[in-house]
């Protein structure tokens, strides 16, 4: 049995136990400062190959900024991320070829149809004509929208658009998938479909970083979970390890679920 882990907002990062699996992703002391505001404060963690890692936190906790640095959209003030042995800071182009990002927003060309969107992103990722054709068919079948491949995206429901959003991220068969709140605003059926897709990807060996505000999603999907607040990771471990936590200073009882723990750790103050 693994020892329960402790957390400390003051002492900084807590490294994740890897369950004996090699680390596919290593986030090393990431710091990001915008003007005088430190949005991410020395964040470090690692994700084992084929794991789903949940990154939770209230609005403004620094989750998106962390993800943006991990996928090389933002340059860290200090620190680095190693993905599949490649440095994001020093080899961004190589890293971009092995990662896929499912953005929080539905980042699709809505006047174009699914195939045209996939064709375009296939070109951008340097896939050959035959690869684009094959992979587009595969990912559309994977997300259950092959029959609607020639319909403009703007005619799709929110849930269907989310699934195409995911399909584009999978097109070039990434080893590491960053999913930033991929189920926002979708109906339960589409959400269930997305969950099944993520679990299938995990079973195929894809490493996934998953952020969400829905605690039940993290409880269901994630092998390991980190909770961020005010730019720091304040707790990290498996679900069981996190639920075993007690706030020594506040004499809080063991939480009954992740939601309760989350509120205990991050407080009840409303965030912007």
């Amino acid at each position, binding site marked *: 049995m693994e020892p329960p882990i402790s957390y400390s907002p003051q002492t900084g990062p807590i490294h994740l136990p890897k369950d004996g699996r090699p680390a596919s992703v290593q986030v090393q002391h990431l710091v990001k400062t*915008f003007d005088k505001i430190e949005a991410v404060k020395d964040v470090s963690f690692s994700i084992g190959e084929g794991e789903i890692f949940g990154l939770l936190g209230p609005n403004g906790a620094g989750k998106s900024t962390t993800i943006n640095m991990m996928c090389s959209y933002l340059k860290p003030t200090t620190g680095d991320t190693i993905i599949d042995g490649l440095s994001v800071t020093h080899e961004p182009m190589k890293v*971009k070829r092995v*990662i896929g990002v499912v*953005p*929080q927003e539905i*980042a*699709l060309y809505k*006047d174009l149809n699914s195939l045209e969107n996939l064709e*375009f992103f296939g070109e951008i990722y340097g896939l050959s004509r035959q690869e684009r054709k094959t992979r587009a068919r595969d990912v559309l079948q994977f997300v259950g929208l092959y029959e609607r491949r020639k319909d403009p995206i703007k005619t799709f429901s929110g849930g269907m658009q989310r699934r195409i959003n995911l399909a*584009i991220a999978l097109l070039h068969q990434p080893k590491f998938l960053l999913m930033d709140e991929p189920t926002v605003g979708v109906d339960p059926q589409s959400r269930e479909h997305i969950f099944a897709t993520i679990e299938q990807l995990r079973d195929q060996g894809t490493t996934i970083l998953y952020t969400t505000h829905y605690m039940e999603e993290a409880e269901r999907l994630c092998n390991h979970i980190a909770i961020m607040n005010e730019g720091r990771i304040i707790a990290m471990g498996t679900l069981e390890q996190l639920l075993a936590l007690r706030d020594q200073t506040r004499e809080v009882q063991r939480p009954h679920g992740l939601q309760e723990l989350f509120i205990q750790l991050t407080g009840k103050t409303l965030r912007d």
Partner: protein
Amino acid sequence: MRTIWYIAKKDLLQTLKDKNSFFFMLAVPLILIAVIGLAFGNLFGGTSSQITINVAVSNQDSGYVGAAIVNALQINADQLKITVHQYQNAQQVTDQVANSSDVNAGVVIPAGTTDNIIAAARNGTTPKNLVQFYALPSNNDPRATIVQNIVTGVISSQLAGSAAMGQVSGVCNQPGNHCAQNTINAQKIISSVGQASAAGGQSAVQSLTVGHATKINAFDQLVPGYAIFFALFGINAAAATILEEKEEGTFRRLLIAPIHKYALLGGKLLAQFILTLIQLSVLFAIGYLAFHLDVGSWPMLIALLVATSFAATGLGILLVSIVKTRRQLNPIVSLVVLVSSAIGGAWWPLFLEPQWMQSVAKLGLTAWAMEGLNGIMILGKDFTQILPDLLGLLAYGIICFVIAMRFFRFEQKTA
């Protein structure tokens, strides 16, 4: 380079699927050009140079002077056509001038006009107020002046003939001279001298041409003017696609993909350049086929359109670099386009503006483009004469690009 083309191709595909943008790019300018060209063609000289005039005339004179005036007014030539509408009395003539917008002037020739001219000639006096000419008060219509000049010319020539007849009679009546009865035909003498007086001068002056005429066909001005005007409005749509991609998140998604950020921007700009060039080319091609545009020189026209598209693309990215949202973009583009079009010669020939305004207009790309286009299409300039405009447009585009790259933000600045 391949990535740039992929991004441009995607943008072109999106535009192809947007029927509204095509309507705005091509149909709206063509409709506007046709309507304005047909409505105000005469302001620029029109496609037809014939001036048409309608005159209301009441000829109450039974002699040859009234008939001569009516004949002189009935003109149907290449440059001038006068239609004479005859009425019984002066009241009808004045009513027509006052109330009919088709009638440009009125002439009343009272009874006895011929007799009065002959009598004045015999007496050696100058007759006054023989014929009444009517026009609207404070009228600066040049067509009324044309009619007045014709009537005055006829009266003058008849007076000259009458004066000549007076001289002949004087010679016959001098002591020692004898003119046999019925050998002096007064009417023939007056008529011959009058005709010689009226027409002799015209044949004595030879009409020649030299150099290039400043020929302004309405469509030679309107097609390039409105083509440039709408091409500049087109940068609104192109610039909006960059802002839209930023707002929708696709720009970020592309920046996360394995492409260089300048390739991303290059693709967007290439699409805008191609769209602007297509828009200008189609409008000029239709202008040539439908409105008989005088393009002057096709190679020079193409060079100017390419340079204009380049400069417009630069202006587009400059605007995108200084605004943050599509909502901010619309009023700024409208202001820039309307002001630069107004003073830059899009709506009237640039060379008609005062020199200082032409200089100020060079701050916008419209003036460079229109100076070059007016040069080859209206003023008949050669390549060396429009080279400054070509270089001006290229420099304009480069300056815009340099400034835009200083301010353009690829990534977010805040968390």
